[in-house]
């Protein structure tokens, strides 16, 4: 029964996230788009929970839905866009874009049952299960310590770069 419940939950989350992604891309009002993207992020966080990535689900809600999306919403309110509602939401070349997107999705869908090596069962016998936050933290701070530090450097560079780009030019 838990397996069936998990599958039902997965298919609900998948359908809801696809629907909210389509609505987010096609809405004319940018704020409505943002709210549909918020729904998409929360449903994707649910999918992360289902595949045993609890920490990733928490980070998805806190960082993506809580920080990045609110940041985008602030920007939309800073730059008021009265004319965006008047014109068409898509450019003149939208059939070409739709064809490109559908072709890519069809290709990736076609390759979704990969001839992978079979799933390894019971690798982490005795240890914490791989989805656990402690296992993720252990790997992040031992095996991936250098990429972790480089990620902090990337964030610092992005912060300085954003300030430099967006700063008002002062005549000295």
């Amino acid at each position, binding site marked *: 029964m838990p397996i069936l419940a998990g*599958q039902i939950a997965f298919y609900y989350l998948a359908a809801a996230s696809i629907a909210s992604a389509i609505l987010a891309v096609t809405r004319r009002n940018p704020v409505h788009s943002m709210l549909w993207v918020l729904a998409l992020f929360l449903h994707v966080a649910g*999918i992360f929970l289902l595949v045993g990535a609890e920490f990733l689900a928490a980070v998805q809600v806190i960082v993506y839905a809580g920080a990045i999306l609110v940041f985008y919403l602030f920007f939309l309110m800073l730059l008021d866009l009265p004319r*965006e509602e008047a014109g068409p939401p898509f450019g003149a070349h939208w059939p070409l874009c739709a064809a490109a997107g559908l072709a890519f999705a069809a290709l990736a869908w076609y390759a979704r049952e990969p001839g992978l090596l079979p799933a390894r069962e019971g690798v982490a016998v005795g240890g914490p299960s791989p989805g656990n936050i402690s296992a993720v933290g252990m790997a992040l701070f031992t095996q991936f310590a250098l990429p972790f530090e480089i990620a902090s450097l990337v964030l610092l560079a992005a912060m300085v770069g954003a300030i430099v780009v967006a700063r008002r030019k002062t005549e000295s």
Partner: protein
Amino acid sequence: MVPVGACLGLSAVLFGIGLIGFLGRRNIILMLVSLEIMLNAVNVNLAAFGHYLQDQRGQILALFVIAVAAAEAAVGLGLVIALSRNRPGVSVEDLTQLKW
């Protein structure tokens, strides 16, 4: 519990929707948001493979993707502010200065 093929199919569909939005929308902020949708699709893929192979390295890669997405949002929106200071509106069809 969750079949990996279904996760990969969901990821493919989400990535295609994000690609359509990125190529087709006229508003530059919504283009950046479509980029976030595509990055989310990639994260679903990574988490599904991590679950399938019973390995937490997929989750760690997804964490790095989230960090890079935050950096991209900061720099991209800084560029949008610098752009909107020089011209009204954020439609990409007005940005033709580099067109030959």
